[in-house]
């Protein structure tokens, strides 16, 4: 039983809502973004008590609540821990689909880092593949200064 919208006398309202939002990345988050913008470096924060390097860096250890200030540089290469593929176009996606999201364990980091994977077909994806960060030419101190992670040959 299919009835057309015309028959149902329905009217569909198309709308668009834009709510501008600004927030401060804070002292630790700002330095993380600035290091990516200026030096193409991915910086983490180490908790010496728990011996974990947090990526993205944070000012407090979530396990022992210690205040952290030990900055360490982590590699721009890493291993894919898990991934998913977004097919449905959506305004919240950073680029056009297909968007491949991955959690990447960077070398020297203790936590997974969520970002996009690129230059890879969905069927070639696998857990454990080695990837490397590709930085944009024009960087604006945003998380998207890393364009995506591409597979290492």
């Amino acid at each position, binding site marked *: 039983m299919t009835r057309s919208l015309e028959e*149902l*006398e*329905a*009217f*569909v*309202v*198309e*709308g*668009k*809502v*834009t*709510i*501008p*939002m*600004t*927030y*401060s*990345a*804070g*002292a630790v*988050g*700002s*330095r993380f*973004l*600035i290091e990516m913008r200026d030096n193409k470096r991915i910086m983490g924060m180490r908790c010496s008590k728990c011996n974990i390097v947090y990526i993205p860096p944070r000012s407090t250890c979530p396990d022992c609540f210690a205040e952290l200030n030990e900055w360490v540089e982590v590699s721009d290469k890493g291993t894919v821990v898990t991934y998913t593929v977004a097919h449905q176009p959506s*305004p*919240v996606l950073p680029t056009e689909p297909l968007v491949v999201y991955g959690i990447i364990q960077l070398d020297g980091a203790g936590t997974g880092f969520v970002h996009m994977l690129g230059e890879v077909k969905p069927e070639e994806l696998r857990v454990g593949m080695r990837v490397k960060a590709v930085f944009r030419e024009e960087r604006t*101190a*945003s998380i998207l200064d890393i364009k995506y992670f591409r597979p290492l040959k």
Partner: protein
Amino acid sequence: MGKEPTQEYIQVQINTPRPYRWSTGKYLGKLYKEAKGHKKLVTNRCTKCKELVYPPQMVCGRCKVEAGQDWVEMSDKGTVVQYTYLIFPRWDPHLGEYYASPYPSATILLDSGLYLRSRLEEKDTQKLKRGMRVQAVWKEEGRGRGQDDIEYFRIIEEPEVDK
């Protein structure tokens, strides 16, 4: 702490438009369709109490019975009952932009007996009066939002009504 160099702080900005769509249903859809297609304001009259139901809806708010299909077209002329002058810029969340401001906003009693709140074309507060006769000017390209497709009401040369 004082010897640390002052650092740059990053402001993260998110400004992505989010499109959405929703179905109005039968009654409100008729108002929106007539406004968009024919630049007319229509509503239904309750078959029991014979009062206008606006915006058009299935159930009459007074009688709590099905309002019925007695559709009436509203007159595009009316009388200013009261007015105010809006100076503070209003944010339209459906478009993500500000309304042009300042502008006078008025309650208008249409000749069909319906009270509407809309804006007035005349921006000179000295020329605004209660009891003025006004006529609706529709937008060139309506968004299909019924009453919101009326750009403003324009003052017309007709004898003022004692209000």
